[in-house]
């Protein structure tokens, strides 16, 4: 079981490394979107501090959405996905591996990049640490929830826009508690509850989503 999971992760990581531009573009998109915000609302440090968490989190949501089509589209195009569906190994396990690999190449770089944004938006070290930690816990949930959108819209015209329409409303709880934890840290309120909830979302989606995505893939490929 574990070896299948590792195999899938290894394969997807290898593909991502061979095609670096995909990974780099997502990260670049994230950076550019966040950079646009001070230009739009003005450079006052107090204002930027207030909106920092929300801006970084919304940009992370958009970057995650943007990278979703890559999750299954290439495997679908070259027929690998069909082989995965036919394989004797549980499909949900393969899906979990693909979602984890997706997080490693999109969510993790975004999380690390957030350290820089903490500095740019004049957050203190404590708030920056909370921002990074909330992204570390929340971005895997984005990959897991997003995979169902990617699976349902597989091979459809206008799939990318459609995916965001389906998935963004489902991201709301993660956004609320992810950005909320940073704002709580800034105003000195306890942050434990936020992280407990983010952790609960992660466990909930890690258990249920791969199974639902497996069903979605079978519907889409049938």
């Amino acid at each position, binding site marked *: 079981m574990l070896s299948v999971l590792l195999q899938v992760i290894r394969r997807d990581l290898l593909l991502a490394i061979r095609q670096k531009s995909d990974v780099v573009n997502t990260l670049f998109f994230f950076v550019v979107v966040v950079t646009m915000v001070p230009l739009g609302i003005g450079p006052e440090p107090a204002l930027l501090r207030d909106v920092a968490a929300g801006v970084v989190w919304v940009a992370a949501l958009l970057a995650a959405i943007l990278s979703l089509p890559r999750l299954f589209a290439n495997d679908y195009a070259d027929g690998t996905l069909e082989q995965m569906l036919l394989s004797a190994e549980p499909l949900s396990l393969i899906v979990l591996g693909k979602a984890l690999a997706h997080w490693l190449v999109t969510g993790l770089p975004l999380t690390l990049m957030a350290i820089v944004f903490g500095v740019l938006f004049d957050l203190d070290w404590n708030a920056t640490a909370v921002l990074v930690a909330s992204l570390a816990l929340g971005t895997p949930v984005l990959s897991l929830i997003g995979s*169902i959108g990617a699976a*349902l*819209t597989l091979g*459809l*015209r*206008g*799939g990318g826009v*459609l995916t965001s*329409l*389906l998935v*963004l*409303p*489902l991201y*709301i*709880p993660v956004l*609320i*508690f992810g950005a*909320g934890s940073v704002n*709580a840290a800034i105003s000195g309120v306890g942050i434990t509850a936020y992280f407990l909830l983010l952790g609960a979302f992660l466990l909930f989606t890690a258990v*249920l989503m791969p199974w*639902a995505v497996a*069903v*979605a893939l079978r*519907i*889409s490929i*049938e």
Partner: protein
Amino acid sequence: MSSVGISSRPGLMWFSSPQTFFPLAGRMTAWFFALAAVLAAGGLYIGFFVAPTDATQGESYRIIFIHVPAAWMSMFLYLMMAFWAAVGLIMNTRLSSMMASAIAPTGALMTVLALITGSLWGRPTWGTYWVWDARLTSELVLLFLYLGFLALQAAIDDPRRADKAGALLALVGVVNVPIIYFSVQWWNTLHQGSSVSLTRSPSMAATMLLGMLLMALAFWCYSIAAALHRVRSIVLEREKRAEWVRELSERELNAPRGLK
């Protein structure tokens, strides 16, 4: 308990065939539209002429006779849609999936109605069309969920795949709705003091309650009639190559000529 009923008499599954359901739905549509009109006439009469003017909100409160039933229906129809979608996915009955697709536009309509009437009521009462209150925000998210369902089904050409993909999305949505609702509620209480309390319901005059109940029943009947009417169209579209649909359309074509 015996299982003889299914073979000797038409049971519940008998109506899951589009052919037998189609004429029944036609008769029911007419009845429920008529019932909705009568109930709405009664409810609106009581709401506008009999119910007393509210002490604090004046006449503007009267929009609740439309707003509250619409809000109820918007949430209930999502559950109904997910229910039929689940039945369609589990039992593999085509008609259940068609029912889910037929309910979705009415549900979206109710959500839009609830949002518009709510903001029209909010303007004189709160002094603003929109506040980021937990209920308003979750109603807006509900609209997004409806639109996502409709958009996904519209994007898929193969009807069977559209049915199943939509069903799965509706089920994921149903699991998420309570999570989203409580998240939004908590987010709201943290960010702004509850300047507006929607939950504190003032004691309601009996006539107001009666008017609201009549309107709620009218909305129920309208939703049932609209969904059945739409499902009939979907049946015809999907089954257009079936023998019984061809016979039906031939009869419809010949009918006016026979009258001459």
